[in-house]
Structures are given as C-alpha cells and as structure tokens.
C-alpha cells in the first residue's frame, strides 16, 4: 500500500522533471554503449564495427527513452500533453479557421457570461448571513392575486401556529429623520423589526446589545440600533455612543447597539427600531397588511411543507375572520426572491433563452466549420488509423482540439463580458438595489464559464470527431478531399445546422424587434411631459409634530407659498407619487353601479396631488379644470381622472360631473364619500416599465400624507434650486429633511430601464446571431464551391454562363434559407407569447416586425451566399479543371 503510494509520488515527481531525467538517462545509455564498445574492441572488432554492434545490442535510443519515460512517469498524461501540443500546432497553422471558430464561440460565451453574471448578482446571490438559503419571505396574495403584506395580528397568529420555522420575525420599512446633538436632521432608511429578527438572521450587534422582548412592547422606552455607517459618521465609531439619546423623528430614543459593517437588512436600512415603535401598530386592523414576515426553515423541513402549513394557517384565519381574511392566501419564497422575483419568469427568462439561442447558433457555426475542415483532415486521420491509432484515440485527439478552441473562446468571452457587465453595473448603480445584490465575477461565474466551455466543446466538437473517426481507413486514404461523393452525409448535417441557425436568428430578431418597438412606445409616451429642468425630492414630516391632517395641510400650504416666491423656480407641486413611479391601486365604483356586484372589477391608481401638479409637468387638462385651493374641503369632494380612465370605464360618456367612489382595500369594502369628477387629465404613466393605467387624482388636502414627493421646474440651473428649496424647508422646520433628490428625466429613465435593457440586449444578441448565420452561410457556400471546383470548370467549359453557375449554388441555399425562415417564424410566434408579459402597446404578432425580419434575413442570406458564388463563377475553366 505504502509502496504503491510511494511509487505514485515518484512518478508524479518524475513527470515534472521529464527533460532532466531524459538527459540523465541519455548519459547513462551513452556510458553503457561506450563500455560495450570497449569490450567489443577488446574481443577483436574494429572500432566502427564495435560501436555498431553495441548500438544494436542496446536497442533504439528513441524508443528506449520513450519506454523509460513510461516506466517512470505518467504515460496517460504524457499522451494528453502530446495531443495538446499537436492541437495547438494545428490551430496556429489553420489561423483563419481558428479565428472564425473562436470569434463565433467567444460571442456566444461572452453574452451568456454577461447575462449569467447579472442573474447571479441579482437573482442568485444570497443574503450575507449564516445559511441564507433557509431564510424565507412570507407574504400574502389577495383574491385578485395581488401581492400584499401581512397584518400585525395575522403575523402574531402565524408565529404562534407555525412549527416549520425556527423563528418567524416581522419587519416594516420606514424612513427616519435622525437628529444628533449639534447636527442638522438627516434622513435615513430604517426598519422596524420584531425583537427576534436579528437572532433569526443569526446576526448580532458588534457593540452593545440586541433587542430584547421587553423592548418590543407597547409603551416600552424607545430604543434604537444603528448601523456601522451611522456609528462611524456621526459618533466617530466611539463605543460610548451606546446609551446616548438621539432624536428619531423628533422623539428621543436610546442607542443600545451597533450592527456590523455591511449589514443593512432588509435592503438598505441604516437604523432599526422595535416593531412596537411603529406608529399605530396596536390599532391596526387585520386588513391593514403593513408588515412583512421572514423566517428560518427548521431543520429537515422542506419549502413545500412550510407552504402547506402556511396555507392551512391562512385558511383557518379566513374561516375565523371572514370579514378581513376572505380569499387571502399565504406565500413563501426564498427571501431574496421576493425582491428580484424568480429567475424563471419575465426578463431573466427572456434573457436566458436569448443568450441560449446565441450560444446554440455559435455552436452550430463551429460544428459546421469543423465538418467543412473534416474533409481536408480526412487523409491525415486515415493515415493515423492505418498506423494503428485506435478510434478512441482519434476521437480524443479531435476532442482535445475542440476543447482548446472552447477554452480560447472562454477567455475571449470573459474579456467581452467584462465591459458589458461593468456597463450594466454602472447604469444600475443609483437604483438603490438591496445591499446583498452586486454584479461581480465570482467563483460561480467562473464555474459557469468553465461549464459552458466544456459543454460547447461537447456539442460542437464531439459529433464531427465521431463522424470523422467512423469512416473506414481505406476509403479515406483514397479520398484526398477532391471528390464530391462521400461528403453527402456531412453536407446533410451541415444543411441541417444551417437551417437551425437561421430559424434561431429569426426568433431572436423578431423578439428584439418587438421589444425595441415596445421600448420606443414607452419612451414616446413619456415625452408628453417636458422633463427638462424638473427636480424632484421627497420629504417626510415627523409623526410627533405633525400628528393631525390639519398640521400637515398647514405645512404643505406654507411650503407651496414659500417656493412660489423663489424667483428662479417657475412652478412647483407636491404629490404622493411622481410620474413613472408606482402609486397605490384601489378599486373604484362608478355612481351608476354602486349597487352592482361588479364593483370590484374596476380599479385605478390613486394619488393625492397639489394644485399645480399638472402645470409643473407642463400639461394642460384635456377637459374640465385642475384642482384649486378649495378642492378637498368639506363639501368639495372632487377628483380628476385621466384619459385612460375615461376610455376604459366611461367610454362615450361625459365624465365631467359624474361621481365615483374609492373602495377600501379590506374585505369590508368600505367606500369613500362620492367624489365628483371635475377634470380629465392627459394620460401619464405611474407604473414602472409598464403601460399607463387608469388614475384617479385626489386633492392633496383630502389626503395629506406624512411623506410627500416634490417636483419643481426651475428657470435655469437646477442644482442651485435644490439648495434654495432645502433652505426654505429648513426655515420652515429644521427637523424635516429633504432626500431622494433626483430629476424627473432620471426617474423616467430608471423606470424604463428594464425595457431599455431588454430591448438593447436583445438587439445586440440578434445582431450577433445574424452575423453568425451570415458567417456560417458564407463558409458553407465557400466550402461547397471548393468541393465542386472541377464541376464548375466542366460546366463553364461546356458553355454555362456566370449567372447559371451562380444559380446552381444559390438555388440550394435558398431552399435552406426558406426552410429556416419558416421554422423560425413559427418559433417567433411562440416566443411572442413569452414576451407578451413585458410588451407595452405592442402586438406580440406585429406583422410589420415579422415582415421586416424575414426580408432582412433573406437579404443577408442571399448576400452571404452570392459573394463566394459570384467569385467562383469568375473562375477560368482551364484553371478550375487543373486545380486538383
């Protein structure tokens, strides 16, 4: 046993010292030969004779050296190295072939790596905590299938009833105004968490202590845990910060702990407060679903079991509290999945399918080039077979060549993916993505690249290799690559691959066309708003100071007055939501169907806006008027709807003067007082990356929310007006900070990003696919011409015209192109169904797009085929006939 191990080690050592040991052995042999020669001379031979006899007696030096190497080293590895060296020499020799294959595959690998890196960074990356894979997010869906939160009371019941989780914790995002002695108030992202949240995550403060259950009780003294950033920036990382009192939304709270660096659970929070500090938590009814829940799966529990248990719990609650919980179902997904969604639907799926197609096309291209070259390799291979190389040995040699090509492609693919992923990372840098999401090349990405390299080598290399080794030796030796027979089988293969390439290109081009059209529609729709010089910001009124609607209304009125007095600002308005960003959706009832059971089928986004909202956006009312100072006062319950609302819910009717009601989200379906429509606004989008939907605008006075968005159009430099605005807000109340400062133009871009990224990426992929198909077509035509040069010569000698010769080749190609186009169109129709979910105002079967794709590909195909054909038809018959 030990001896065997010792021998193995000796062999590995010897393998790495091959040249040293070879020299050593040579010397030994030489001395052997010399001694034998001397003895031979002593026996009476002439020196020449003696040396000759000695050499024969000892044996061939080359063969001995080879066998010595085998006896002491790693023979299998040695021959692999030999294969590698041979393959490398060959690839250097066939420079053009190598370049063509590597470029095709590198494009395929590059785009796949890019998409995988993004999906890896967003969809696959886990929270940086212990065993993140077992952290689950729990939420609900209502009867209409809309995603909802969890009510505090439901959470308590889930927590008490659940056995499949080691701990269930609740959290709710918030934002806080943080006042530290001697500094102006700052606005930070914060989070209310139940006392067990950090222990469920298995994280604990680096300084101070974690929350205790008694901190998370109503009426408990206010405590707060701060993030590492807050601790270092505001307290100079001083441990004595623990126990200090700071003002949180104007009320004092004691710091009890500091979380570790780069902990910002759940998304980008910087401070954490006990859930009990959440305003009005105790008063929240069962249908105020304001918290989110997460938990750690208990050991040995599967996701399916957890889902079954939660489903049983929610069914029980629905039976117990039908008024609030009817139709509410529980959902359990991986924690990170609730933010980015599943990678198997929507944009990630479309991207993966698209790059998969590009890779397939690249593989088909490479396989075709290999098959074409196989013809010229045949004599070499037959010679090796005849000399006794086994079939497996030949396949291995050829596979090593493919692997080498794929490895080269992998390197170039990575080089291609690097700037692409950097660009995506840069573009999304200000998207406020969760702290765990990061686009980087990590081990998983490198593993992925290695896997697809080996995978592609198998897909494009193994079949040609097997085919080449398959044919008998005798026929191969005879076939020196000039006859037209014998290649028909491989030509059929090549044609099949070509048809596949064209079909996949059609699908990609059509998808790209639809997505580009959709992105343009979205862009064009946004252009109704003149977004230049429009600065946006958000402000939050501390709940303590502005507890009543009256106090908030007063603040906003004063603010509007003050801003209007700034000369450099043309117009400004507040609203609960800005254009392009999401607004809450509520069910709407028309006065005509108040009693009707169908009341729940109409819904609209609702937002409260200041009186100059549309004026600031540069829009005028389609009909009626915009809000004035009296709207929202008792007796003045008014609303503005957008054009889409009218076309969808009041087609052909005069909307002005009609009355609508907003229905409460709870199952009680309490409806608001009737609202009179006073104006019809132009349709603007309040949804990210989606088509605009019906909107009901309410006067801000009717819904004075504590957090408001602001926008203002400045006459000149917008950065200067931000500081002016900041000044005004500070003069009104130093505890009200301004944050989320941006421009409407940027918000419009951000909200269209998914569409823009999808369409531009698919455009890139489709362009690559078309290029590869054209390359493939060109290569195959060139190849088939080279096989039939003598035939061309005969035909020309017999009087065929150039056009006739060209047609000879074009005809066959056109059949393949036509077949590919037909199959591709069928595939594109199917792909349209996948795209339907993301398309905006675009028909998934848009005839214009489909027709352009067909024409484009047909033209590209004919050009790619005609170029070599035309050149061939210009051959001098005499030259063509003598060529082989």
């Amino acid at each position, binding site marked *: 046993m030990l*001896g065997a191990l*010792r*021998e193995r080690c*000796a*062999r590995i050592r*010897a393998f790495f010292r091959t040249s040293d040991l070879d020299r*050593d*052995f040579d*010397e*030994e*042999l030489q*001395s*052997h030969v*010399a*001694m*034998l020669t*001397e003895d031979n001379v002593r026996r009476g031979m002439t020196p020449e004779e003696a040396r000759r006899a000695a050499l024969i*007696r*000892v*044996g061939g*030096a080359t063969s*001995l050296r*080879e*066998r*010595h190497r*085998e*006896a*002491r080293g790693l*023979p299998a590895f040695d021959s692999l190295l030999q294969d590698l060296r041979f393959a490398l020499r060959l690839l250097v020799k066939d420079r053009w072939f190598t370049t063509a294959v590597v470029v095709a595959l590198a494009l395929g690998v590059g785009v796949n790596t890019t998409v995988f890196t993004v999906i890896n960074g967003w969809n696959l990356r886990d929270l940086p905590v212990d065993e993140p894979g077992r952290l689950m997010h729990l939420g609900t869906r209502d009867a209409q299938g809309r995603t909802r939160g969890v009510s505090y009371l439901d959470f308590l019941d889930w927590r008490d009833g659940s056995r499949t989780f080691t701990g269930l914790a609740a959290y709710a995002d918030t934002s806080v105004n943080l006042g530290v002695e001697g500094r102006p108030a700052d606005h930070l992202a914060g989070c209310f968490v139940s006392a067990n949240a950090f222990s469920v995550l298995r994280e604990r403060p680096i300084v101070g202590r974690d929350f205790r259950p008694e901190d998370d009780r109503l009426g408990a003294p206010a405590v707060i845990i701060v993030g590492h950033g807050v601790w270092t920036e505001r307290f100079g990382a001083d441990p004595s910060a623990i126990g200090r009192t700071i003002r949180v939304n104007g009320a004092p709270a004691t710091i009890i702990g500091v979380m570790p660096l780069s902990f910002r659970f759940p998304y980008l929070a910087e401070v954490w407060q006990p859930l009990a500090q959440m305003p009005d938590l105790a008063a929240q009814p069962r249908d105020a679903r304001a918290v989110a829940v997460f938990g750690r799966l208990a050991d040995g529990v599967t996701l399916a079991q957890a889902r079954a248990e939660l489903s049983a719990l929610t069914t029980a609650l629905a039976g117990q509290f039908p008024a609030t919980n009817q139709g509410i179902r529980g959902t359990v997904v991986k924690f990170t999945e609730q933010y980015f969604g599943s990678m198997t639907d929507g944009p990630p799926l479309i991207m993966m399918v698209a790059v998969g197609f590009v890779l397939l096309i690249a593989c088909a291209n490479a396989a075709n080039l290999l098959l074409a070259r196989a013809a010229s390799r045949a004599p070499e291979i037959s010679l090796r077979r005849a000399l006794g190389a086994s079939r497996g040995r030949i396949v291995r040699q050829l596979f090593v060549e493919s692997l080498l090509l794929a490895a080269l492609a992998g390197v170039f693919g990575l080089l291609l993916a690097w700037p692409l992923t950097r660009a995506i990372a840069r573009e999304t840098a200000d998207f406020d993505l969760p702290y765990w999401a990061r686009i980087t090349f990590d081990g998983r990405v490198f593993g992925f690249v290695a896997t697809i390299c080996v995978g592609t080598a198998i897909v494009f290399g193994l079949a040609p290799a097997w085919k080449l080794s398959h044919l008998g030796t005798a026929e191969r030796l005879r076939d020196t690559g000039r006859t037209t027979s014998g290649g028909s089988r491989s030509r059929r293969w090549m044609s099949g691959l070509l048809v596949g390439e064209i079909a996949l290109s059609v699908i990609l081009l059509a998808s790209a066309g639809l997505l580009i059209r959709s992105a343009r529609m979205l862009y064009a729709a946004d252009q109704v708003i003149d977004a230049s010089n429009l600065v946006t910001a958000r402000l939050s009124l501390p709940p303590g100071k502005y507890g009543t609607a009256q106090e908030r209304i007063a603040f906003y009125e004063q603010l509007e007055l003050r801003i209007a007095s700034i000369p450099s600002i043309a117009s400004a308005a507040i609203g609960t939501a800005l254009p392009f960003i999401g607004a809450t959706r509520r069910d709407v009832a028309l006065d005509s169907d108040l009693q009707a059971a169908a009341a729940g089928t109409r819904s609209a986004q609702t937002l409260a806006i200041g009186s100059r909202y549309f004026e600031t956006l540069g829009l005028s009312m389609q009909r009626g008027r915009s809000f004035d100072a009296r709207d929202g006062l008792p007796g003045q319950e008014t609303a503005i709807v957008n054009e889409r609302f009218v076309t969808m819910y009041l087609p052909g009717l005069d909307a002005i003067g009609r009355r609508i009601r907003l229905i409460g989200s709870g199952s009680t379906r309490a409806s608001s007082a009737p609202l009179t429509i006073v104006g019809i606004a132009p349709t603007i989008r309040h949804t990210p990356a989606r088509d605009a939907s019906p909107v009901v605008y309410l006067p801000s006075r009717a819904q004075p929310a504590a957090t408001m968005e602001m926008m203002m159009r400045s006459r000149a430099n917008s950065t200067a007006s931000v500081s002016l605005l900041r000044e005004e807000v500070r003069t009104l109340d130093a505890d009200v900070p301004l944050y989320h400062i941006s421009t409407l133009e940027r918000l419009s871009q951000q909200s269209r990003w998914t569409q823009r990224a999808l369409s531009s990426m698919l455009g890139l992929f489709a362009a690559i696919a078309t290029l590869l198909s054209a390359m493939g077509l060109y290569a195959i035509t060139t190849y088939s011409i080279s096989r039939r040069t003598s035939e061309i010569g005969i035909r020309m000698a017999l009087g065929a015209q150039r056009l006739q010769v060209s047609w000879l080749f074009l005809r066959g190609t056109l059949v393949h192109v036509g077949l590919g186009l037909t199959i591709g169109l069928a595939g594109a129709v199917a792909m349209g169904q996948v795209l339907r979910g993301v398309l905006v105002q675009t028909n998934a079967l848009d005839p214009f797009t489909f027709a352009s794709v067909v024409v484009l590909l047909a033209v590209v195909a004919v050009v790619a085929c005609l170029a070599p054909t035309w050149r061939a038809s210009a051959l001098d018959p005499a030259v063509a006939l003598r060529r082989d």
Partner: protein
Amino acid sequence: MSQECQRKPDILQGTLDLMVLKTLAAMGPMHGYGLARRIEQLSDDAMQISQGTIYLCLVRLVHKGWIHAAWGTSENNRKAKFYSISKAGGKQLVTETQNWERVAGMIGRLLQLGTRG
C-alpha cells in the same frame, strides 16, 4: 510502447527484478552495463533481450525504493550510474526468494506427479 513490457509474460518482469536484486545483494553496487553483462553470463546468454531494457527495470525498482542509484566512476574511469540494494530491497529479496522457492517447489512436485502417472 508500454504494451511490450506487459505483453511479455509478467513472470519475466518478476524474474528480472529478482535477478537484479539478487545480483546487487551478492556483488555490491554495480552499473547498468555490469548488471546486464552479469545477468547474461548467469543465464548462459539465454536471455537475449536488448540490454537497454534493464534500465526500464532499474527505474521501476528505484521508484519502489528497493534500490538506490548514484553517479560514480567505473573501473576504467568512466562516468556511470551505480545501483545498490536498499534495506527495503533486501527485505523484498527475502520475500521474493521465498516466493520463488515455494513456486518452484510446487511446480517441481507437480511435474514429478506427472511422470509417475
């Protein structure tokens, strides 16, 4: 190629190993040429293999740790690699010899059986 070693009966390989070990144990350090000559003489030139083959056997025995190799100077002042048996090689020689004697005895008895019957 390497098949040759394996194709020739393994007995030959084992025999050659044993011969080399025994020779080195009996005569002390020797170079490859000397070993080849000695074995040829002992076998009455019955083993007509190319002399170079001895080195394939020697490198294997070195890897197994049964013999040591070191460069030195031959009797007529030539640079040569000298092989000597190691402690492990000595033990191996004992086992191999016992093995050989057992097999030889067994075969001998078997052949005697054959002549009687």
